[in-house]
């Protein structure tokens, strides 16, 4: 078994139920193919940085799962994504051990955002390297 994560964006013009159903459809598909679902994170409707298919926002889903090496479940899922007009974007990434640990820590809330982050970005526009907010990441 190898660990993967898939982020996909669903058309926000669908109703709340339909968005959930569409996401659930893909989760069920993976389960049927014998994948082990670790986590499904619904990030909700977020603003897109640029318009995709004339949509300016999208419903983000982040799915973490384990699939057998050599199984074609993922390629089949991506094919379904491409055929599905309601899916604006998708990205599947192989998760290495550092990333897996990071995801576990993130879910445990170790990287809760501090108020400093806004200050930091302004400082960094002058190409300064700053310490404070990095320390929040060190724990992981």
């Amino acid at each position, binding site marked *: 078994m190898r660990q993967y994560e898939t*982020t996909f*964006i669903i058309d926000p013009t669908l109703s709340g139920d339909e968005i959930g159903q569409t996401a659930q459809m893909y989760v069920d598909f993976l389960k049927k193919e014998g994948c082990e679902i670790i986590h499904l994170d619904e990030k909700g409707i977020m603003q*897109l*940085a*640029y318009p*995709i298919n004339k949509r300016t926002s*999208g419903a*983000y889903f*982040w799915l973490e799962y384990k699939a057998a090496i050599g199984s074609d479940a993922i390629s089949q899922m991506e094919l379904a994504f491409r055929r599905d007009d309601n899916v*604006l*974007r998708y*990205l599947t*990434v192989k998760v290495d051990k*550092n*990333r897996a*640990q*990071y995801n576990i820590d*993130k879910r445990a809330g170790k990287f809760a*955002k501090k108020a400093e*982050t806004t200050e*930091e*970005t*302004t400082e*960094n*526009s002058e*190409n300064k*390297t700053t310490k404070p907010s*990095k*320390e929040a*990441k*060190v724990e*992981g």
Partner: protein
Amino acid sequence: MATREDIKFLSNPKIGQKRNKYCRFRRFGIKSIDYTDVDFLMNFINDQGKILPRRLTGNSLKYQRKVATAVKRARHLALLPYVADNMK
């Protein structure tokens, strides 16, 4: 009359000093770069959305490659723009 103490601060004493560059990933032990963490990736792009060179960020080559991949993934997912003006 300006005394010697006043004159001392007329020019910024930090001007002309060399700032030590370092790789923040190595120094703070960050092993994984999250492509969904937009605020963090903002440190590595300029206000046009371009990836900053190692010359400016001080990243080691290994982590600069990972930063570049993370920024490109974020762009694909429309978390960061491909082209922008005045992002910051």
